[in-house]
């Protein structure tokens, strides 16, 4: 499903954010990428949804080399992905509902369908009672759950999450990863970047360890 061949990324000489990364994540796998801060986890994730272009290497998703997709067609790749960002990236001037529905809005989903799907996604993260609130009125943890709801609302084939539990208490963190696990059971490939060892130990099917941009080991 997701294949990386000898991927290198350099932002600034002489440092390599990613050095010769080759890996495969199969369809329906539940995968953690872990490692210390600055090890290249976020960069690796960003190369998968092509926010960052690798310096060398190839990335194949569902049999397609995503580096060859022209810029104006990249939206087709991203429509199959749900992405949860470390900094949430919410629309603070829009309501909770609109933040989730924006993913469906760009696809041209009919209003009734959009309402239904947005409500289901918000119920999954237990935010359905805050549907008309603004994100600024939500707690940090609730904002994170909102970001997750936006990522899962369209039943993506791939779910990428960068530190999705970074600001949650252990109980809620467990709940969120259990939610990801549920989504994964429905066939979605899930890749999560985290350094929460407890979560990795409890949920980890496949674990990739990164250190200074190098893939140290796969478990």
């Amino acid at each position, binding site marked *: 499903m997701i294949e990386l061949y000898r991927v290198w990324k350099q932002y600034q000489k002489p440092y390599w954010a990613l050095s010769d990364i080759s890996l495969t994540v199969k369809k329906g796998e539940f995968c953690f990428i872990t490692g210390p801060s600055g090890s290249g986890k976020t960069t690796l994730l960003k190369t998968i*949804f092509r*926010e960052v272009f690798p310096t060398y290497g190839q990335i194949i998703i569902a049999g397609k080399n995503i580096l060859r997709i022209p*810029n*104006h067609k990249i*939206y*087709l790749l*991203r*429509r199959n*992905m749900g*992405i949860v960002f470390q900094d949430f*990236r*919410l*629309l603070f*001037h829009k309501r909770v509902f609109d933040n989730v529905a*924006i*993913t469906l*809005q*760009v*696809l*041209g*989903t*009919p*209003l009734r369908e959009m309402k239904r799907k947005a409500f289901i996604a918000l119920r999954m993260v237990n935010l359905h009672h805050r549907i008309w609130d603004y994100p600024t009125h939500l707690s940090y943890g609730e904002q994170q759950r909102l970001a997750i709801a*936006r990522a899962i609302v369209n039943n993506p084939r791939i779910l990428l999450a960068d530190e999705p539990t970074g600001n949650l208490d252990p109980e809620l963190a467990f709940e969120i990863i259990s939610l990801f696990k549920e989504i994964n059971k429905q066939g979605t490939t899930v890749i999560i970047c985290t350094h929460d060892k407890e979560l990795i130990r409890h949920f980890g099917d496949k674990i990739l360890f990164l250190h200074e941009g190098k893939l140290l080991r796969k478990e």
Partner: protein
Amino acid sequence: MRPIFQKIKYFLEEVLNNLWQFKTRNAFSVTIICLSFLIVGIFLSLSNNLRFRARELSQNLSIVFFLHQDLNQEELSLVERQIKQSPLIARIRYVSSEEALEKFLKNFPELREIVDNLKSNPLPSSFEATLKEEPADTSRILSFIADMKKNAAIEDVQFNREWAEKMQSLSRLAEAIGFFLGGILILASFFIISNVIKLNVFARQSEVEILRLVGSTNTFIRIPFLLEGTTLGIAGSLLSLLLLYLLNKLFPVYLGTSLGALQEIISFRYLSFYQAVYLISGGAVVGLLGSLSSLSRFLRI
């Protein structure tokens, strides 16, 4: 709701939100656009008036033959016959010196005192000859006038075709000045819209980023910005039309009377329907192009 209407609704909501969110800078750009188009509009309506007057004059093209005073009836009839014989003339009318004075005082009431101080009527009697409707060759008219001037009973001849032509050139000049000055200001508006949209793009950079990452097409991201620029352009030009209308109504009341007879020339005639439509479309195009130029340079998608 059908997806297409839903998208339109989304775009309109976005445009209204954004216009409201950055209202100060948007109001500033609308004002600049309005002033630019107002300049064009003012000169267009001056030109309209001059063209109207020129048309009025050409429809009543006439030659006025001023007569020497103290002519007897026989001499008058001779001149009248001589004029009537010309194939260029449609009709002829005798204007006595009393009638001429009356007309003069009606047109220039402020000069009544000067006229009253004079011992006698200074205005000569005349024949007003109206030319036939089809425009005759000017050289034929001029040669007819030259022939008439040989008649000792005629003191002077006034032919107002020159006036009609002068009015028409003045009208063209006013139009050209309007387009020149307006053009410069419209160019300035273009840059202002472009910069306003640039600021709006920067202010919404994070939103654009999110839209990109959830799979928006470039068009979906661009449309609200383009609509925003176009709306600013249309709002500015509509406002300029409204101001021009007020100017049209108020000018004769406040300034018109002090201009006396000149009021007929220096006056506004409101734009025609097509001119108004062109002005609004001009505003829309300036707004659209301003946004486009800004998006192509600053919206990284």
